[in-house]
């Protein structure tokens, strides 16, 4: 038996393996997180005002998969979105897999065994700009900032790893749970979806357990995410993450969030041959402690006002460009939710690894695009190469069984 880890009462536990089959999808007034655990019985809510997987604490494993929608008619979309919602509701809450006659292919891949445990899974469904092209007549319902991801000056985007009609972000405790969920979705949507690109990310489980107290390091060896928005503050989330009324967005989009996914290769061999002092100057933090340069603690706030010429933290340092902490730049705050990735070698035999950068914001233009334009030309560019990803819009949550993710969008036009 698994020993339950301490979690908030908002979380839903399956009362042991036998009861798993009896439970329907959990309900939640929202998806606000509390503490992370790595228990296989932990279920994140599926129904709510917002989708889970955005302000939910990050578990150790993620899988991002973009899809082309193969449906040819608008009339097929409700079936597609309803099916996706049903599968994602099941997968995130768990249950037993129906029996099948041995002469027929099993309905479930079986990689989690006959009982699917939720394992902290969230499955967040987003739409890409191309879904709003000529095919389905959705153009008038497009979120106003949603377009194809532009090429920034340092980008070397590979079209085969970019964009997509839909994107699902699977996050859970294990790679197997994410893969199981993906295979279930593919099995349920033949003829409707074709995977376009996929990438898996990871975080160190021991750091995940203390999320909030400790910060994950990226493949450059630096702490990444220290100055992130506090997801436990609903007012911050409403201001910076969730699309609200009065933003001149389509009504259906309220409660959703702009999602940016960037596959950023880090040229680690070269980085590892760079002097420590130079690495720290490029980032603007001490490598060991994570503290801003000349400060003692990771969470110390750099005093840029006292350092106008960048003598301590260079004006071109990553942390200073990303968040200048100047009046007028607070509007560009974004919620980062990145993972590390590593997957084989490049053609030159170098390590293909880096940052699977993910962020959420209520306003794509004020958020990521503004930050990225500020970062353009930073010293770090020599060591990083964005090669894929895209702009997406994470759909608002769906309140209850009977509704489904995307129903508001489809009803809007």
């Amino acid at each position, binding site marked *: 038996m698994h020993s339950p880890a301490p979690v908030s009462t908002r979380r839903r536990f399956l009362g042991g393996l036998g009861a798993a089959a009896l439970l329907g999808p959990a309900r939640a007034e929202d998806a606000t997180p509390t503490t992370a655990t790595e228990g296989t019985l932990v279920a994140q809510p599926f129904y709510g005002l917002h989708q889970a997987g955005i302000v939910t604490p990050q578990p150790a494993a993620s899988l991002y998969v973009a899809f*082309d929608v*193969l*449906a*040819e008619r608008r009339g097929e979309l409700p079936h597609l979105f309803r099916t996706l919602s049903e599968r994602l509701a099941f997968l995130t809450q768990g249950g037993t897999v129906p029996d*099948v*006659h041995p*002469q*027929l*292919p099993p309905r479930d891949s079986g990689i989690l065994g006959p009982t699917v445990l939720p394992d902290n899974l969230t499955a967040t469904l987003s739409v890409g700009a191309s879904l709003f092209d000529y095919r389905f007549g959705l153009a008038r319902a497009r979120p106003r900032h949603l377009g194809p991801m532009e090429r920034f000056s340092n980008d070397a985007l590979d079209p085969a790893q970019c964009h997509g009609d839909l994107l699902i972000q699977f996050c859970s405790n294990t790679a197997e749970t994410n893969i199981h969920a993906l295979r279930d979705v593919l*099995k349920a949507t*033949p*003829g*409707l979806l*074709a995977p376009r690109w996929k990438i898996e990310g990871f975080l160190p489980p021991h750091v995940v357990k203390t999320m909030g107290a400790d910060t994950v390091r990226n493949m450059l060896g630096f702490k990444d995410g220290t100055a992130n928005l506090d997801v436990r503050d609903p007012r911050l989330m409403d201001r910076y993450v969730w699309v609200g009324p009065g933003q001149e967005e389509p009504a259906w989009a309220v409660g959703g969030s702009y999602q940016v996914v960037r596959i950023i290769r880090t040229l680690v061999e070269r980085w590892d041959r760079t002097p420590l002092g130079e690495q720290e100057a490029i980032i603007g933090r001490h490598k060991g402690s994570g503290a801003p340069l000349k400060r003692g603690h990771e969470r110390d706030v750099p005093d840029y006002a006292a350092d106008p010429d960048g003598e301590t933290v260079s004006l071109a340092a990553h942390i200073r460009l990303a968040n200048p902490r100047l009046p007028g730049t607070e509007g560009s705050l974004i919620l980062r939710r990145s993972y590390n990735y590593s997957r084989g070698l490049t053609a030159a035999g170098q390590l293909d690894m880096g940052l699977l950068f993910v962020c959420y914001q209520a306003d794509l233009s004020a958020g990521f695009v503004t930050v990225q334009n500020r970062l353009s030309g930073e010293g770090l560019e020599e060591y990083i190469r964005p090669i894929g990803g895209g702009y997406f819009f994470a759909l608002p949550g769906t309140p209850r069984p009977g509704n489904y993710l995307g129903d508001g969008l489809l009803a809007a036009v």
Partner: protein
Amino acid sequence: MPEIPRLAPDRRRAAAVAVALMVGLGDPRPGWALEQPDSPPRPARPSRPAAPELAAALAAYRTYVVAQADAFVRETARFVAAVQAGQLAEARRLYAPARAPYERIEPVAALFPDLIKRLDVRGDEFELRERDPAFVGFHRLEMALFTHGSTEGLGEAAERLAAETVILRDRVAGLAIPPAKAVGTASALIEGIAATKISGEEERYSRTDLWDFQANIEGSKVVFTLLRPLLADRDFVARVERSYKRVEDLLARYRSPDGGFQSYDNLTARDRNALKGPITLLAEDLSTLRGRLGID
């Protein structure tokens, strides 16, 4: 000139029967239809067709396979003759048509892996890739004809290829195709399309992938059509037939004026995606075919 293999009289008869079957395939033969109630889209339990009907369908399929193996020998001999005569354009023209009969029955031919290794393996399955001396067969000739643009020095390889097709025909003629394999051919051909045809890996030098695509679909549909009268679930049958029709209609868009197909390079990513839809549906649906017929 290579010797063109001649058909033995009994083979000619088998071919004639198979052709007759093909012509009549649009309608189930009288007496085959089974009166059974409709079942749900995904059967919880397969229905078991009466043995004689299944045996008749399997016998008809065996006849079809032998006829295709015969046609393969014949068409390959024409192709090989053009290669040996140094007729580059003619050899290129005959390359894809020669392979079509083989592509219709590929999973049955695959029961002889040693033979397939010499007939139809791509260079990347060998240690030295395309330079590997073991890289022979159709794709070795394809590379020479379409990439190097020459028939120079291909005589021996071409002659060996012709000989292998005769061996395949003789082995197939003596083969009792296991029922599970025969029925499984319907989905195995679709899996082949999904795995290597959509990507354009199969005919990477000639870009004649759509010929293979068409032949795979034809071969799959023959099996399905022979078994259709034994299938109780009319919704399933209708869905599968819609998917076949969808693929056929899409393929028809890429026909060339001479009755062949355009280069696969002409298809955009979106065109290829459009093919993925019905192919994936067929793959899922046909994966239940053996189970629906209660065949282990």
